[in-house]
Structures are given as structure tokens and as C-alpha cells.
């Protein structure tokens, strides 16, 4: 019980350190917002034209509100899945800063277990990332409500579940990567690298259908693709159902989903939604195992005097 109280006290402390660092908090929050604004400002019309191109192939004309909402939901699903990783990487800065400032050494002079300490960073990062992502989601939902809202309540609930899954994935990935980082420079390098690469390699910035088939197959091996996939499904399906109700034929709906990653194919096999969850959560389990192993090995190495002071 006391160890649990210590864990919670450390978690609160880590979260407070994060939120008191106004710059860190601002950067974490503003990054997804900027991405959302950039998407809406520069890419919205591109996607609206693409959607209308598909509709015209089937002799269908969609009302503006529906198309605007569909474009917004596609863009928001991209932002949510990408930023769950990039924000987690950025938010874990408290752990790195503690290593740099020697706070970790100080904490180790108290009777707190090394695993409790590591777990507190993980939980704090998870909660902070979740809070930031929920804030982004609220802003995104307000935007969708303004331009065209066709997301049923059940899908809203599933989007919340998806957010939890994506944040868990992002936090675990950040925990594993950043276990090896102990300088601000390395953290900046990793943040920059992940921010610039991740959106592309998980198919969030561009639909997978626009990649060459070889690249698409490689991307389909990466678990991040399925964090985008689950988001796409729950953000877009309400819009697609409404399009069907208004007269877009089934083939047209499938063409839309195929072209914009509502359906994900590995080779020629369509991945069912449940398999995306299995892959994503399975990856989370593997990352958790890796993270726990790293923590144990690092504590063990410390105990066996193999680390440099």
C-alpha cells in the first residue's frame, strides 16, 4: 500500500513538473493544434476534391456539409493517431530532465524502488499525453460540429477507446525509446526525427493508396498504421453511412474507404477492424514487455556496478 502511495506521489510530482513547465506544456499542446490548423487550411480542399472525384464516378453529389465533415474527420483522425506518439515523446521530457539534473540520483537515495520510479514516469506520461490528446479531440469535435457532424454516439465512445489505445501505444513507444536517452540534445533529435517521420510511415499524412505498393506493404507491417486505421474507421464510418443513406452506392462507399484508409489491405487481404486492435494492443504488450525488461536490466546493471557514475 505504501509503495502504491509512493508511486502516486511520484506520478503527481512528475505531472506537476510537466504542467508547471509552461513552455513544455505549450509545445505539447500547440503541436497537434498547429497540425490540425495546417491540415484544415492547406489540405482540406485537396481531400474535398478527391472525395468529390470519387462521388462523381458514381454519379453522386454530396451536400457540402457532409463532405466538409468527412474531410475534417479524416484530418482529425490523422492528427489524433500521429500526435498520440509525438506528444508522448515530448511529454516524457520530465524523465530526461531528471536524469540531466541528477534528480534521479537524489530519488534513489530514498527508500523507493527503481521499478516504482520508472513506473511513475510511465503513468505520468500516459496521463499527460491523454489529457493533451483529449483537449485536441474536444477542439476537433467542436470543429466537426461546426462544419458537419455525422459521428454517432457509439463511434464517439469508440474514438475515446481508440484515443486510449493510441496514447498507450505512444507512451510505451516513448518509454522504450527514451529509456536510452539522458541528454537534452538526444531528446531533441529523437523528437524531431519522430515528428517528421512518424506521420508518413504510419500513413497518417497521406492515404496508403497513394503510396507505391512496395512501400505500402512495408508500412502495413508497422503497428502505427493500425492506430491510424482504427481512428479512421470510427471517425469516417458515420459519414460513409450517411452518404449511403443519401444514395451513394455500396461500391462508391467501398471506393471511398479503400482510397482513404477506412479499409486497410495487406496484399489483397482486407484487415478486419478487430485485427487492427489485436495488432495494436499486441504491439503494446510487446512494448510493455520491452519497457519492463529495460527497467529491470537497467536496475540490475546499476546494482551490479556496470554503469558509469
Amino acid at each position: 500500500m505504501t509503495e502504491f502511495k509512493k508511486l502516486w506521489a511520484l506520478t503527481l510530482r512528475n505531472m506537476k513538473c510537466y504542467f508547471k513547465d509552461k513552455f513544455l506544456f505549450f509545445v505539447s499542446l500547440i503541436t497537434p493544434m498547429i497540425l490540425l490548423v495546417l491540415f484544415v487550411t492547406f489540405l482540406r480542399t485537396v481531400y474535398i476534391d478527391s472525395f468529390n472525384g470519387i462521388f462523381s464516378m458514381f454519379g453522386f453529389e454530396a451536400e457540402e456539409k457532409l463532405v466538409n465533415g468527412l474531410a475534417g474527420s479524416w484530418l482529425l483522425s490523422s492528427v489524433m493517431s500521429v500526435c498520440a506518439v509525438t506528444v508522448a515523446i515530448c511529454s516524457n521530457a520530465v524523465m530526461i530532465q531528471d536524469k540531466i539534473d541528477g534528480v534521479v540520483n537524489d530519488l534513489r537515495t530514498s527508500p523507493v524502488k527503481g521499478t516504482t520510479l520508472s513506473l511513475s514516469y510511465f503513468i505520468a506520461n500516459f496521463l499527460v499525453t491523454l489529457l493533451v490528446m483529449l483537449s485536441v479531440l474536444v477542439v476537433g469535435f467542436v470543429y466537426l460540429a461546426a462544419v458537419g457532424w455525422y459521428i454517432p454516439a457509439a463511434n464517439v465512445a469508440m474514438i475515446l477507446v481508440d484515443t486510449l489505445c493510441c496514447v498507450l501505444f505512444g507512451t510505451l513507444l516513448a518509454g522504450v525509446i527514451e529509456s536510452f536517452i539522458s541528454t537534452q540534445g538526444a531528446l531533441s533529435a529523437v523528437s524531431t526525427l519522430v515528428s517528421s517521420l512518424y506521420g508518413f510511415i504510419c500513413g497518417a499524412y497521406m492515404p496508403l493508396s497513394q503510396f507505391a505498393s512496395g512501400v505500402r506493404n512495408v508500412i502495413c507491417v508497422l503497428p502505427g498504421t493500425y492506430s491510424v486505421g482504427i481512428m479512421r474507421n470510427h471517425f469516417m464510418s458515420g459519414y460513409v453511412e450517411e452518404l449511403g443513406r443519401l444514395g451513394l452506392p455500396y461500391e462508391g462507399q467501398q471506393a471511398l474507404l479503400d482510397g482513404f484508409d477506412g479499409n486497410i489491405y495487406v496484399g489483397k487481404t482486407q484487415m478486419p477492424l478487430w485485427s487492427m486492435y489485436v495488432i495494436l494492443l499486441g504491439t503494446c504488450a510487446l512494448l510493455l514487455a520491452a519497457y519492463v525488461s529495460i527497467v529491470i536490466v537497467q536496475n540490475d546493471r546499476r546494482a551490479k556496478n556496470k554503469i558509469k557514475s
Partner: protein
Amino acid sequence: MIIEIENLNKSFKNVKAVNNLSFCVKEGELFAFLGVNGAGKSTTINIISGILPKDGGKVTVCGEDVDKHADAVKSRLGIVFQSSVLDKRLTAYDNLKSRAALYGIFGGAFRSRIEELDALLGLKDIVKRPLDKLSGGQRRRVDIARALIHSPDLLILDEPTTGLDPQTRAAVWRVIDELRKTRGLTVFLTTHYMEEAAIADYVVILDAGKKVAEGTPHELKTAYATDIVRLYSHLDEAEKQLASLGYGVCRERGYVDVEIKGTRVATQLIAAYPDLFDDYEVLKGNMDSVFLRVTGKDIREV
């Protein structure tokens, strides 16, 4: 004994940071651990406090082996590090609260402990302010409060007054004295200020990871320090005559220093050559000269 160290060894790759070190610290004493930067002081402290594992030897703190009962040892010692490890963005109160939780001190117990520490350290005006808004001295007080939050039996101070102004240094020492007097706290001190080491009960001097001298300040001064007779008159004559007698003589601007072995020798010298000693003073050897003699290094310059 509150600390017992036997044949302690620690290396970093090819560098022997601590070399077969043995010493003891008695309960309630002010123990000074001296050495130039890189002598192995911080490594030893890190081993005592369980941050760093050792290569060999035995370390017992408060009767517990640090390897076997690390948590028990950690619960009984508090450390003030060279540089503050407090969270600068948080308030002093938040810093102390999260620290107290690690020792199982929550709620009412924490609040009453804060009141006790306020009475001792005068935290009232600063406790709700963020650390980065406090002066160096105020931050040091919070550092000490953090180290004392769980009422430890042993307080390790790793150069606690380095970089502080004389007034704040005096304030820090007032707190340390108060703690020793009222609670019988054992204080393990590393410092670069020899006047702080001079008031210690026992001193160990470390050089390149090895113990090179130990004893009370008086014993060390008697064994290693050189007294000096400083003459302010008849400088040319005194320099020539005393040097010819084999004394170490050093001519400076306006005075001549003559190294002597104890005040008895000074009395004999003055009696033998009264004409030279119109204006003079006898200076007792201090811890600076002990350190210089033992290590061959000036602690302030290395």
C-alpha cells in the same frame, strides 16, 4: 559507530576512484571528509547512500549493511548534494511533499513535520514560492529541509556552502549547530572551506582515492601544520641570520615568515635572538597548511 567503512574499493574503468578506504564516524559527531575535486569524496558518499554500488569492501551505516539493507539505510540518512536537486518549477512545499511521500510521510504527519522544519529553518515565507523565485540561500534552506524531512540520524552534506555568501554560510552553519545540539544529529561533511573543517570533531583527508591523514583538527595540526613566526622589523638581517641557522625563511613584501616546529621553538628562538624580534607575531598552523602538507595541493586551487 554510525558509519563503518572497511577496505572500500571503487573503480570507473581504469580509474581507481576509491582505493582501499577505511574509516569510522561516531554517532553525534561532525565528521569532515576532505579532498580536492576527484579525490573520491562524492563516490564514497554515493556508495554510502546507496546510489552507487561498490567493487569491494564493507560499508555499514546505522548498523546496517548498505548492500543487504539498502532501504533501511536510506530511511536513516539525509543528503544535501553539492548542487540543488529540487524541482525548480515546483514550490518548496510541493518539493517537500513529494519527498516526504517517499518516506511514507503523508497528510497530518507531513504538515506537522513542515511546522517543525519551519521552526528550525524559517521556511514560512518561502514554502509556497516556486524554487526558481528563491535566492541561493533560501534554496539551500529548502535543500536542508528536504534532507531532514524524514528525521534522519545521519545528515550528509556534500559541500553545502560552496557558492554561498558569507551571511548565508553562517546561517547554514547555525542550522547545523542547532541540529547537532538539540537532536544529536551526526553530520558527515565535505567542504572546500578549511575553517569549516577546523571545527569538525574528526577529519579524514583523501587524495586520489586513498586516505592520507586522519585525526581531530588539533591532532592533524600538531602532526602536519607548520607554525610561523612573522617578523616585521630587521628584515634583511632576520632573513640572512635565520636562514643560515637552517630555518625555512620566506621574504615577502613588508615581512619575513620563518617556519618553526611549534610555539616552544618560537620561544627559544626569540630568547636566543632578541634583537631581531622587535615587531613580530606567532601564527599557529591551520587546516589549510595541514591539507597542503598532506596532499601537496591547495584545496582552493585544484
